[in-house]
């Protein structure tokens, strides 16, 4: 029971990261029907932005909650700018061509970002500074033990970083929910994703809405990057490839274009992976199969529900 709860917590932590990235895939797909393969690299850009911000602002040596917040927001803004730039210069000129063409542009952008970072910063992993530190004036009862963990019950613990990831992810998702369902901009996003031309006839500047969607998605991915770096503090230029791919799988699993679906898909894949690593040996699945878990679940789900878990029937544009 203790291990089960522990695995559940670990799975949720990774799952929320996948969910944050999956949201960007799903929003861009919902609005442009484009698989933005460069999105995983935006996650990496976010982590690197956070890394350099932390050192530039001198926060690496003086961890604090406020500093972490500043790094997080700074990285989100940086990634949003990068995301909008990519949309403007690589995707917008190709919008009226076949989707396969835009996909090639996306692959090109992805390779460009990856190898630009390799050329500039080298292939070797860097150690991301630990930025999270609770203020000293908090009572002893609220402070974690020296390993940064809180005891739940038995041997099950939750680390302060895990709490941070879950809390920040939920907060960001609530903000996203509010933007999409409660603001005029969000309503316009939904309108554009349903029918681009009708949206134009409303006087909506659809180019602006699409750029905003890229900015939102990219900033969530960057948050995922900084949060991952707190949990597993090694960052490197190619870190976005596999994580990005799995997050994309999560988005498809939940029903691509469907925002709650992306969250559900992310959490499912995060937990499934953790459980395969934790319990797989008992039923003959070695932990080296971890990276195959996401795809296996996806294929099984799609064979029975071709539009994903929460997706409605696929709207192919004829």
């Amino acid at each position: 029971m203790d291990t089960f709860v522990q695995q559940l917590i670990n799975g949720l932590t990774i799952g929320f990261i996948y969910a944050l990235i999956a949201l960007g895939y799903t929003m861009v797909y919902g609005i442009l029907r484009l698989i933005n393969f460069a999105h995983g690299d935006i996650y990496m850009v976010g982590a690197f932005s956070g890394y350099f911000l932390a050192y530039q602002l001198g926060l690496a040596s003086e961890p604090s909650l406020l500093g972490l917040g500043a790094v997080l927001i700074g990285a989100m803004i940086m990634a949003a700018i990068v995301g909008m730039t990519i949309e403007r210069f690589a995707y917008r000129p190709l919008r009226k061509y076949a989707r396969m063409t835009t996909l090639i542009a996306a692959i090109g952008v992805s390779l460009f970002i990856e190898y630009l970072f390799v050329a500039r910063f080298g292939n070797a992993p860097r150690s991301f500074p630990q930025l999270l530190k609770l203020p000293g004036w908090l009572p002893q009862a609220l402070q974690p033990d020296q390993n940064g963990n809180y005891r739940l019950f038995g041997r099950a613990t939750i680390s302060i970083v895990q709490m941070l990831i879950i809390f920040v992810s939920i907060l960001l998702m609530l903000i996203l929910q509010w933007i999409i369902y409660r603001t005029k901009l969000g309503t316009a996003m939904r309108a554009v994703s349903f029918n681009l031309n009708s949206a134009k006839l409303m006087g909506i500047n659809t180019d602006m809405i699409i750029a905003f969607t890229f900015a939102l998605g990219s900033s969530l991915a960057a948050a995922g990057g900084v949060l991952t770096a707190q949990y597993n503090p090694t960052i490197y230029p190619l870190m976005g490839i596999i994580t990005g791919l799995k997050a994309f799988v999560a988005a498809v699993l939940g029903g691509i274009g469907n925002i709650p679906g992306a969250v559900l898909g992310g959490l499912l894949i995060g937990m499934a992976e953790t459980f395969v690593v934790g319990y797989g040996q008992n039923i003959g699945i070695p932990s080296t199969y971890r990276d195959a878990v996401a795809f296996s679940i996806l294929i099984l789900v799609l064979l029975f529900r071709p539009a994903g878990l929460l997706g409605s029937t696929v709207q192919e544009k004829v």
Partner: protein
Amino acid sequence: MLVLENVSVNYGAIEALTSISMRVEKGEVVTLIGANGAGKTTTLRTITGLLEPREGRVTFEGEEIGGKPTHKLVARGISMSPEGRGVFANLTVRENLQMGAYLKKNKREIAKDMERAFTMFPRLKERESQKAGTLSGGEQQMLAIGRALMSRPRLLLLDEPSLGLAPLVVHTIFEAIDEIRSEGTTILLVEQNAHAALKHSDRAYVLETGQIVMEGPSKDLAADPRIKEAYLGE
């Protein structure tokens, strides 16, 4: 108010409109009738900037608008209820109307305009917080017209408002068109239902395979034997 001069439009290599010229004066209801595929929707899409003319000039209130982005034209006072209704099925009725007023900033005016839409089509009021996708065809058409009015257009373009609707609903829609006209809004109405269109308009143009083949006061056209035979089924 709206003038098209020798406008030609292509879809790729295929010419959809061949040098058409037409004008809509302030306060008029002008109708454009023609068979399926004659180029009626293409004409409207060109006026609203969704398509770019290959040749010719489109001017609105004296200014050239051909090829300008659609959202800028909406800001200048052109609004359109698209063919197939084009409502946002994933948005509620109220949100659809709000999107119609996307460029309006004054909250009180928006609320007033929304009330007006609800008075014009009481059925919409009942369905206010339903998703537009759950509405019937007639209700969606009402929503599309109500939504197009939310931007307070000076020129309203209606694309096939009676398409696929029951006769009783068609009657409601044309009553609404009369009402909108009486408030001083200029209307360009595209219709396959030539009978109703000619009855509710001042002037008419007939479009055949991308060319204007006839024009004149609606009354005269309705009496013309060629129109009677080809479009009125008499």
